[in-house]
């Protein structure tokens, strides 16, 4: 049998895009086949919403008379995305440990294409995670509305992309999965606690207030909460993130999240390009 000789064309944008797509698709296939991971990741936010939210809410109403579960709902959505996206980015470390990374490193594609594919893969997984939380909105007193769902999806997309990019930046630099997990714990928990996911950010001591403003997640939780609370008819005046006395508008907040993500991704691509 005569060999079919194929030709590998010189590198081009079109081929880099093919590379982005296949790196993304591989992550999707792997996620879809990993049913225990899907179930576990769908369950965790439910624990926060129904057990933590119900239990804490029974004892106190610190949030202006609204149900604590409604208050927590956007925070839990952000938290779920945060965890999922970081772990998705960790697959890069996993690939390095199990050798698959080499397959990607010796291919005639721009290394940034691989990083971008990974970021989109993680972002999609994060979106899926957010959607599982969206799906139970009705059970915690957030009625379904197409407009609200669409806005939240858009915000989730930006958040997922940004978080995965930060995760990829960490993953590119770290050589072992254990080290990655340890580092992620150190990054995730402060991000989560400072973001306002669990408590309102007004009336805090100055040092804590300043720290919450340095957390990029803050700027995702706030607009998501604004949408939800507005939807259930709560007056949100005086709630949002402020810089000295300026109430930061939603567009600026989301811009901060997006720019943080892009910046992290650029740095990650650069660091990855230097990998030997």
């Amino acid at each position, binding site marked *: 049998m005569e060999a079919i000789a194929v*030709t590998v064309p010189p590198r081009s944008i079109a*081929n880099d895009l093919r590379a982005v*797509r*296949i790196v993304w698709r591989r992550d999707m296939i792997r996620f879809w086949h990993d049913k225990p991971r899907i179930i576990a990741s769908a369950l965790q936010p439910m624990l926060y919403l129904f057990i933590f939210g119900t239990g804490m809410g029974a004892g106190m109403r610190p949030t202006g008379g609204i149900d604590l579960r409604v208050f927590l709902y956007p925070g839990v959505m952000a938290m779920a995305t945060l965890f999922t996206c970081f772990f998705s980015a960790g697959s890069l470390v996993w690939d390095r440990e199990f050798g698959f990374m080499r397959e990607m490193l010796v*291919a005639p594609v721009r290394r940034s294409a691989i990083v971008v594919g990974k970021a989109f893969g993680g972002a999609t997984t994060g979106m899926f995670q957010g959607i599982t939380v969206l799906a139970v909105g009705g059970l915690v007193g957030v009625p379904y509305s197409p407009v609200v769902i669409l806005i939240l999806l858009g915000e989730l997309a930006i958040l997922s992309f940004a978080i995965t990019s930060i995760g990829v930046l960490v993953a590119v630099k770290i050589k072992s999965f254990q080290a990655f997990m340890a580092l992620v714990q150190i990054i995730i928990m402060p991000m989560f606690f400072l973001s306002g996911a669990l408590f309102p950010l007004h009336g805090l001591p100055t040092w804590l207030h300043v720290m919450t403003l340095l957390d990029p997640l803050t700027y995702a939780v706030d607009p998501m909460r604004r949408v939800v609370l507005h939807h259930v008819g709560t007056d949100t005046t005086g709630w949002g993130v402020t810089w000295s006395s300026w109430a930061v508008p939603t567009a600026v907040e989301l811009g901060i999240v997006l720019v943080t993500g892009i910046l992290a991704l650029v740095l990650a691509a650069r660091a990855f390009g230097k990998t030997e």
Partner: protein
Amino acid sequence: MTEASAPAVYVRGLRKRYGEIEAVKGIDLDVAPGEVFGFLGPNGAGKSTTIKILCTLARPDAGEAKVAGYDVATQRDDVRRHIGLVFQDTTVDDYLTGEMNLRFHAELYGIPRAQVAPRMQQVMEMVGLWDRRASLVQTYSGGMKRRLEIARGLLHSPRVLFLDEPTVGLDPQTRASIWKYITELRARERITIFMTTHYMDEAEFCDRIAIIDGGTLVAQDTPAALKAKVGKDRVAITTADDTAALARLRERFAVEPALREGHIMFAVANGEQFVPRLFAELGVPIRSVSVARPSLDDVFLAHTGATIRDKEAAAEDPMARIKRAMRR
């Protein structure tokens, strides 16, 4: 120099240093298109570093290296388009099917869409995995995974295929089957094969071999020529009185005998002609004689002063061994 006549691999004065350790100390290599070239050496000799440089995974500190006519330092993407790689450690994704692993590769290399399916079928049939294409790779045996890697390395019709220890850790039967594929491959595809191995019997299959030791190239030629240069046959005898025989061999025949596992061993030129003289003049009853042509083991011994196994035993890092075993 036109592309077609360019050497498949061309290396001059290549050097690479990792901190204090100079892994490669200025080597020259020439591999002609269509050759099966064996690169031999114990672990830590500079083999892997050289391969990494040739595959664009590491940058040389000094010297020049071209693969398929392209410079590995300045034309990395062109080199990558024209080489295939099969690493010592598996680099396939266990959680994907065999077919999906190849599809990933095809997309990453930008193989024209119309060519992907027929070429994929061809390489998978060649390594006997077409029927198992839809199975997850985690259900494959070690040998099947290695075959999948070979198929993947060939998918984009590379001009040079690098095989880093393609048969290490496989049982003899699987090793033989891998060699069958490599031999077929040579016949069917216009391809140059650059492989490392530390199985000396496998190096015999190569058109030419190079031996690297301590970062320097100590020999480079065809297996036959290298063996001829060693020049001496190996003679092993058993006698009724080894002590007397050893002394007598030293005095009368001027050879350096050694006693190993009950056999007296020594090397002489033209072993067959030596044997009658031995019987006539040794003066100690001889129970058995065997004469062997020099093997590549002897070549290795002659150039490095130790067998490859001795070198390995001295150099092997136990952690590296454990890590390798875990990945499999």
